[in-house]
């Protein structure tokens, strides 16, 4: 009996004992630490199915995939949220997922690709250079608009990025330069170094210790396309309603990270887990994604909140690299990067 039918029977009250066995009390979503949906996000799912959703979120995305690979077949939960396109090939190679791609709701075309039929794209987020409007104004500089601008001497000593060796946005930025310049990426990084780029270990070191908006002295920082709406939402005191966001995005510098969710192979309740993946791309859940996870919904037709409509720029032509190529070349690229930059 399929879980859907079983659940329906259970709900209408005429299911037998066997039906109850197929309906779990709870399902566990395994994810990284940044997966923080609002507390009531799964109420609709629980109301519909009777299943309580628990979240086991720990570590970063790299740790998530590493432990999922280690526990493939004996997973720590039922559904995984948060493997991205820089790590997807590794997760697929480790046979982490029970193949299931949800078609319960239409998903944006631009997110399809690797992982077809095995996982479901659930959100996207662009890693981009951000700029501090006030600080650039004070220097009499226009914001840069492209990767090429960043090596312009006018912006000398103004940029801080995190290292691809130790941070996921750092890797995304390295991939952006590889997508943009091909084999010429090493020359580009030499010019960045000549232009006095500062490389630090992690995103928060860059954003909260070096970025001029938060007390540092560099007005250009590697962050996300959704950081400006976050700066508005979390501004204190609140900004005037018609004020622009204090930070902006260098739209030509963006690498697109796509996050996927999938049913973990070897879980006890694969049927119910599929229902949960369906729910993850339900417009009701997806509409919560922007302001709690600061990423863009994967489902088409989900209206963005005002903070995103006003302050998150559309990135029409994000840079990208094939997941398979990332997995095979990553170590070489990082070693080459280390030799060029450090």
């Amino acid at each position, binding site marked *: 009996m399929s879980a859907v039918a079983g659940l329906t029977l259970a709900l209408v009250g005429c299911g037998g004992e066997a039906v109850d066995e197929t309906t779990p009390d709870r399902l566990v979503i395994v994810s990284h*630490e*940044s997966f923080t949906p609002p507390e009531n996000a799964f109420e609709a799912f629980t109301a519909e199915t009777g299943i309580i959703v628990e979240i*086991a979120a*720990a570590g970063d995305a790299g740790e998530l995939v590493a*432990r999922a690979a280690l526990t493939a077949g004996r997973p720590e939960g039922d559904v995984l949220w948060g493997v991205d396109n820089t790590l997807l090939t590794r997760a697929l190679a480790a046979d982490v997922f029970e193949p299931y791609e949800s078609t319960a709701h239409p998903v944006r075309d631009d997110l399809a690709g690797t992982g077809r039929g095995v996982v479901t794209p659930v959100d996207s987020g662009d890693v981009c250079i951000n700029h501090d409007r006030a600080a650039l104004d004070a220097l009499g500089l226009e914001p840069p608009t492209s990767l090429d601008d960043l090596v312009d001497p006018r912006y000398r000593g103004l940029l801080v990025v995190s290292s691809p060796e130790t941070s996921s946005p750092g890797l995304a930025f390295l991939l952006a330069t590889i997508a943009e310049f091909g084999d010429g990426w090493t020359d580009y990084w030499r010019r960045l170094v000549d232009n006095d780029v500062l490389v630090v270990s992690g995103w*928060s070191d860059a954003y909260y210790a070096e970025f001029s908006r938060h007390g540092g002295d560099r007005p250009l920082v590697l962050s996300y396309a959704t950081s400006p709406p*976050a700066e508005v939402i979390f501004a204190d*005191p609140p900004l005037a309603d018609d004020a622009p966001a204090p930070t902006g995005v260098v739209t030509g510098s963006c690498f697109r990270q796509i996050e996927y969710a999938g049913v973990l192979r070897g879980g006890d309740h694969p049927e119910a887990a599929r229902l949960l993946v369906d729910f993850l791309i339900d417009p009701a859940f997806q509409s919560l994604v922007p302001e709690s996870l600061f990423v863009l919904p994967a489902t088409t037709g989900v209206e963005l909140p005002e903070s995103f409509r006003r302050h998150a720029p559309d990135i029409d032509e994000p840079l990208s690299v094939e997941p398979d190529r990332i997995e095979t070349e990553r170590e070489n690229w990082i070693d080459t990067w*280390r030799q060029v930059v450090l």
Partner: protein
Amino acid sequence: MEAGRPLSGRARSLGGPAWPAAALVTLLVVVPMLVLASRSVRGGDIVEVWSRPGVGEAVRFSLVIGLASTFVTLVAAAGPTVVIGRRRFRGRSVALAILTAPFVLPTVVVGSAFLALLPDHLDRTIWAVLAAHAFFNTSVVIRQVVPLLESVDEGLLEAARTLGAGPWRAWTSVALPIVRPALLSAAGLVFLLSATSFGVVRILGGPSRATVDVEIHRRAVLLGDLSGATILAVAQTLVVAAVVAVAARRRPPAIRLARSGLARDLPLAGPWAHVTIVVSIAIVVVPLAALVASSLRVGGNWSIAGWRMLLGLEPLGGPSALRVDVAGALRRSLVIALGAVLLATPLGVGAAVAAARDSRWRVISMLPAAVSAIVVGFGIVVTYDEGFLDWRGSVWLVPAVHASVALPFVTRVVEPLVAALPHGPVEAAATLGANRPTTWRLVRLPMLRPAITTAAAFSGALSLGEFGATAFLARTDSRTLPVLVDLLVGRSGERPFAAAMAASTLLFVITFALVLGVERRRPT
């Protein structure tokens, strides 16, 4: 009857009291590591990994930073250790609590404070790393050496002076031999902590520097080279175990004290004692004050919004009204710390007693200080995954792991004092008919109590501040304060950052209160 036997006789080296500690370390460190190795290591990598990019540099850097940090830390700790160990003055317990506080602060917080305070040209240099290691580890030296230093009989020093030794000579010939075991053991621990440093090196060392632990994490998580990472982790553990074992064999027998502590009621005499304490405290307080100040600033203005968010009086912001469950995180942190203390203290004391008899037992209790948190985390996740052994997500897993992390500190604090326990009172008790448990309860434990309370406070503080293993093993509903801080500083915006600084300050205040509370109650 028990007491006639020498306390440190090799005849009784089966290590009875060390077994519970050995069991904990075996279950949570050794077995997971072996299982992980058997699952992930590819044979060829055992040779190849050493020539992969970054590995050789990491090994060299670990050795260099370990040695240099130990030296700097010992120099920095010498003054305050001597003054606190030999002088009794108003505010002594407060001073001790303040000097212990850095050890438990989240690395990310101390890292930011150092970045803010150090001149720009020193940021992300080896000097910044050295300064931070000294800042963190000075308390390790103070904590280990002070209990023994306190017990140096002032009469002995006086006798030496009466016999014509100058103050310096009296110190080096009388006090130094007594504290030497504690000093060496502290130095060894500081070396180990610095050589396996993770967070400090990542933040303050800049992207070009990696210890072996940083390289292990990079291989396992970023490059997906779990095989190489596990080999490095196993090798590091084996090397440390071997060095500890060899050092244990070479250790000179501890000097036995005629009687325990005496004559600490000296006034805080001389300008140097004042200056030493004031300067040491200032070095610790300045970054902490910067932290407190940053918790009271939001977006460049003075504000208590960070604290209001922390206390749940206002949401982080936005229509989705994110709230910070700080009360929950605080409660969990305290419960976990209590569990860790209750587990680590008796186990650590047992291990210390065994190690005092036969120092080879020290290897067991030192192992947790030598293993990479991420490797233990991976190991636990793959090892305990089935049936009644499915411990992933168990409530007691995090306190138990914290206890194993605290074990080296407990044993290192207690062992020198056990080794120095005088025979006399024990034999007297035995002569009067006391059996073994009674002798322990009435004679040995009271003499060890200063070291035990110190060790308990230290393990509680360590547990409160532990991040690496907790972040890996904790789940959404079991986040501790340090994990919450990390989560908050991972968000863009003024308000989450203010809440993070308030949470860090709270962590520091609670730790401080805990250590101070224990010091105040400590029998002197």
